[in-house]
Every structure is written in C-alpha cells, then in structure tokens.
C-alpha cells in the first residue's frame, strides 16, 4: 500500500471537476476521493454548461485546468455528451482524465463513448454506477496512456 500512495503523491493532482446534478452521487465521489488523493481543489457543477463555462474562464485567466473530470451523462441544459463535444473544440493541450459515470445501460451511450475515445486526445473512462471505490488509475493519465 505504501508504493502506490507514493506514486500518487508524485502525481500532482491539482484540481478535480465533478459534473453531476445528483447530490448523492457528488457526495459519494467526494467521499471515495479522500483515500486516494489529498487534492483539496474539487469543484462541483450541476450540468455540462456550468462546467464548460468554468473551463473557458480558467483558460482565459490562464489558471490550471483540472487533471481529472468526473462526468455524468444525464443532466439538464447540457448533458455529458454535449459537454464533451464542446470541450473538444477548446484548444486544451493538457491531457485530462475524464471518467464518465452513468447508470445508463443504453447501448447507444456505450457506442458514443467509443466514438469519442477514438477522436479524443484525453483519457476517456466509462464507468457504470454503482461504483464503490475510485482507483488511483482513475486519476492517472500516464498509467492509461502507455
């Protein structure tokens, strides 16, 4: 157990976005993050639009972009897919780990994930709810990108 934690501590997780309109899920993610990261900068967004606007603002102000995003699909105003679509248009150079969290078992969603994965330079994970634990690999893009 000593080694991975060391490894993470080497990985600087500056900030994390949680984009989900369900307060219970947000509560769960925050709780599960505690054992794997000491990152204090966790921002919560109710929908894709809020998160996207925040990204744009950060880029304009030259702030650090989040290293990890937890993204729900079914959300009002701008859903997870629309958020991804818009985000890919932004000139982001950093690789971000994006964890898609959904309770959907619609095969269409799985298919969309595959499409996005192939045209996206970020790390795209797909996780069906419920989740009980967040692995260190869910925060680490180097591990995934080998």
């Amino acid at each position, binding site marked *: 157990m000593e080694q991975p934690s060391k490894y993470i501590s080497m990985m600087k997780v500056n900030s994390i976005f949680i984009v989900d309109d*369900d*307060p*219970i*899920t947000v*509560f*769960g993610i925050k*709780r599960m993050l505690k054992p794997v990261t000491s990152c204090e900068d966790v921002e919560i967004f*109710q*929908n894709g639009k809020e998160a996207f606007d925040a990204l744009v603002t950060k880029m304009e102000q030259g702030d650090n972009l989040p290293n990890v995003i937890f993204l729900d699909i*079914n959300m*009002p*105003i701008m859903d997870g897919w*629309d958020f991804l679509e818009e985000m890919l248009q932004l000139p982001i150079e950093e690789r971000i780990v994006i964890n898609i969290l959904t*309770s*959907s*078992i*619609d095969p269409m969603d799985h298919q969309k994930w595959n499409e996005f994965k192939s045209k996206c330079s970020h790390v795209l994970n797909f996780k069906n*709810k*419920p*989740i*009980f634990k967040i692995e260190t690999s869910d925060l680490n893009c180097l591990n995934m990108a080998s």
Partner: protein
Amino acid sequence: MKAVEKIEQHYLIKQLPKATALVSNDGTLMDVSDSWKELFGKKINPKSPINVRSIFSDVENLDIKLLGGQTKSIRHQLKRETEILWLESHFTPWFDDKENLMGTIIQTDNISREIEAELQLERVNTMLRSKSEVSKVGCWEFDIKSEELFWCDETKKIHQVPSSFVPNVNEAINFYKQGYSRNKISMLFHKILNDGKPFCQKLQIITHRGEERWVQSAGKAIIENGEIVRLFGTFQDINEEMESEAKIKGNEQLLTTLIDNLPLNVFVKDLDSKKILVNKAECEYLGKTPEELLGKSDFDLYDKEVAKISRDEDLEVIRTLKPILGKETISIKKDGQITNFLTSKIPLFDIDGKINGLIGISMDITPIKKKEEQLQHLINITSVQNKKLINFAHIVSHNLRSHSANFSMLLQFLNSEENEAERNKILNMLEQASDNLLETLSNLNEVVDINTNINLKKAPIQLNHAITKAQQNLAALLDKNKVIIENQVDKGISVLSIPAYLDSILLNLMTNAVKYRSPDRQPKITITAKRMEGKIMLDFTDNGLGIDLERYGDKIFGMYKTFHNNKDAKGFGLYLIRNQIEAMGGQILVDSKVDHGTTFKVYFNDESK
C-alpha cells in the same frame, strides 16, 4: 329411145335437192344428183366408175344395207379437207318399171348442225349437272296443272333419297323439320301458289336418312298469260355454312360474355390510341355507353397529365412491340375522381403479324391501395409505439438504476463508516434517495397509466371554459407572478378529450410558461384555437425565455430533460402531457425563439368528428 329415157331420168336425178345417188347391184355409182356431188365433192366419170364402198369405207356391214332389199338408215361421218360432217344416209331398193331390183338409192342429209346442237345441249346439261353437284345447288319444278313435282338429282341427293324417288308436294313439305321450318315452308308455298310471291328462306330439313341439315330453299312463279303455270326453284345445302356460322357466333358470344363479365376494365385501342372496343366494366367506370366511348382517346376522357402518360405508354408498346404488364398506374377522370389501376398493355397484331393496335387490361386496385395505406399507417403507429416503449424501458431502467446505484453506494459507505456524525449524514442521504425513488416510481406509474388506459372515455369539452378553470386552479401562482392570460378561444370550439388529461395539459402548459418566464418582462400567455381539417389546433404562446430548438429540439419532450437553471424544473411535465396528447390521437409541436417566447401547438380531435 333408151338414151332419151336415160337422159330424162338423168336430168331429173341431177336436179334433186337432196343429195341422191343411184348405185348398181355391184356397188358402182350409176348416177348422182348435183347436190350429192357438192356434198361429197366427187365427180362421176363413166370411164372410171366409182364404187360406193370407197365412199362409205368406215360404215360397217355396208353390203347388208345395200343388198338387204329394205329401207335402212345410218349415221356416219365424212371427212372433208377442213371439217368433219355428220351425215344421215337412207338406203332404199331401186326397182325398174318391171319391178326388177336394179340397185340401191342412197339419199344423204347433212345433219351436222343437228348433231352439233344435240352435242351442245348434252354439254350444257352435263355442265349444269356438275355445277349443281359442285355448288350443291339443286332445283325443283312444280307443274300447277298436273300437280307434278320434279326434283333434280342434286335436290334428291340433298334429301338423301334414291335418284328413282318421285316426290309429291306433301312429301316434299314433310321433309322440313317439324315446327318453324315446316310451318314456314307451308306458308311460303301457299303464298307463291296464290300470289306468285317469290321466296328464299334458310330452313332445316330432316333427310330421308334422318339427318338434320340446313338448306336454302327458293321459289319463283312462272307466269304465262297472266296465270301461274309453273313454279321453279332452287334447293341448296347450306349446312356447313350454317354450322360454321353458328360456331363463329358461339365463339363470339363466349368471347363477348367473357370480356364483358371480367371484373377488369378491358379496351382495345388503334394506333392513334382511339378506343375501338370497350367492355362493360370500362363503360361503367367511365359512366358512358360503348357508343360514346368508341373512337375516343384518353385525352377526351382523362385529366391531361394522365392522358399524356397513357399515350406515351401506348406509343412505347407500339414501338417496341413488347407488352407492359402489371404496371401500377393512377388514373384521374375529368371529374377529378382518382383510381389506382394495375394496368397491362399488350400489342395487338393483324393476320400478317403487323401491329395494328393494343389490348389494355386494367384492374382497379384502389381498395387494395387504401388497405395498403391503412396498413402502412398502422405499421408506422406500431413502430412509433415500439420506439416509445423502448425509450420508456430505457427511462425506467435508467431512473431505477440510478437510484439503486445510490442505495448500493450509500449502504456500502454505511457499512464501513464508524464515525457517528458521518453515519447520520449517510442515513440522511439514504432517506433522500428513498424519496427520490418513490417520486420516480409515481411519475413512471402516471405514464404507464396513460399508455395502458387508452380506452378512457373521451368527452366533448368546451375549450374556453377548460382554460378558465385551469386559470382558477393556478390563481395563486399566476397572481404571484402577475401573469396576464389572454384567452381568445372561441366559445363555440369544443375538443374531444379525456377530461383529466385536458386539465393536466392546460395546467402543465401554464405552469411551464410561468416557470420559464423572462425576468425582463411581465409574463403573458396568449391562447387561441382554430378548426383545421377535422382537428382543433390550440396555440399556447408565452413571452418567456424560449429555448434553443436547434440544440434541444428533439429532447424538449423527453423525460427528465430540463434546459434551464431552475429549481422547480423536473423535466416531467412536457413528457407527461405529450404522452396524454398522443394517447388521445393528438399531437404536440413546439416553436420557440430564445428570449422571445415559446409557442406550443396542440392538436386535438374535433368534437364533431
């Protein structure tokens, strides 16, 4: 004396008008008349006596005739340079005044002309006989005075009686078939006897051998001195003609019956696409008599467009000589009636194999087409329903799964959590998750109810009144937000609806308009309605935030889809009313412009339908 006598005698003979020759007992020509010389072309020279045998060389047993001492006659031929003469010679014994047999007197007549006439007559008779045999035309003759009836051989043959048969009038009439034929001939015979009225009639006889056959019997009176003396007539076997005629008529009848009673429109057109034959079905379809249709082209009967298409098809068949088979066509009559046909056009050739028109066969498939459309409509409905069901299944699974996922997660947290404050927090969350699940279940139930209770009773509801009622129910909300409602619906308009659904639709549309009002304007709702093709269209317009339809167009009626940052928004109202409207056979559409407002168009079935 003797010489004088001889001379006198000689001179007498010389002058005889009939060719005469005196022949001695030994056959020597003693003396001949000038007419004999002319006939036989010979001269008598006492120095070279001529034996008569040399002249009658081709007559057999000449001696018997010469020496028989009796008068005899023979017919014989005389070959002359250019012709052969028929002669008749009479041999008479020649006695002197003492009754001594001196020889024979031969007198010869030129009977060539009579023989010619005789031969001619025989030829004519033979010709007549063969002609009557070949043409099967016999004849008959009836003598009024003697009441004798004559039948020629052919007439007898037609009656199949032996040539020895001798008919009488009664027998002849009885040969005719009992009934019409016999009655008719009796009447005609009576008339010709009394008035001399000629007749010519096709009748049936029963022959001597019992065969039935058709004959043409004709008669004409021969009148002498104003009185009918004889009847003459012909008798012809026309059985074969009548039989083939009957066969042709039978075939024609069969064909006409067949074509006329086919449940298909049949027509024949010439090379100019003019109709030259139409059957009953075609006449009935066009509502015209055959006479009115013959000679007409499609341009006289159908819409111009349709007629042109049809003419092009005709020309194609005429040009390629290939039939068009089972083509689906649409025909529009001048009165605008539209019929779907399955049409075939087949080239029609004359006996020499040259095309001279075409046969058209059309089957009216309008009812089948209508059924097909209904079926297609049903399939569409079914597939829409199916899509809705799948969608609903996903909604159910997604919503239930998200709650159950939350339960699992929270319970797992609870298991491993020992901190009391943290445990209470998790328990709170569990309670919230349970409430959410209950609400979701009740929402889903509502939707299931709509889609299962499609047989709820619809009633005519006055739309204006229903709107006023909804306004009263929402009075508190509307007052609080100072909403202006302009209800412009005509009081005469009623819709056919399930009362609870109409209430739900109006309440949801109103609360929706209030929820998404613009903070910059006083909320205003304008409601109008109009009748359209058996439907009532309700227009529900607000001046609120509006929605970007290009972006959310297909999602606005989705379940749990919300598009504004609004705490009250649950994304269920529009999903619910769309289900209610569609369950009643209606439709809901949306039109919107961001920051201007939104118009919902709801189609109901008209109360009067």
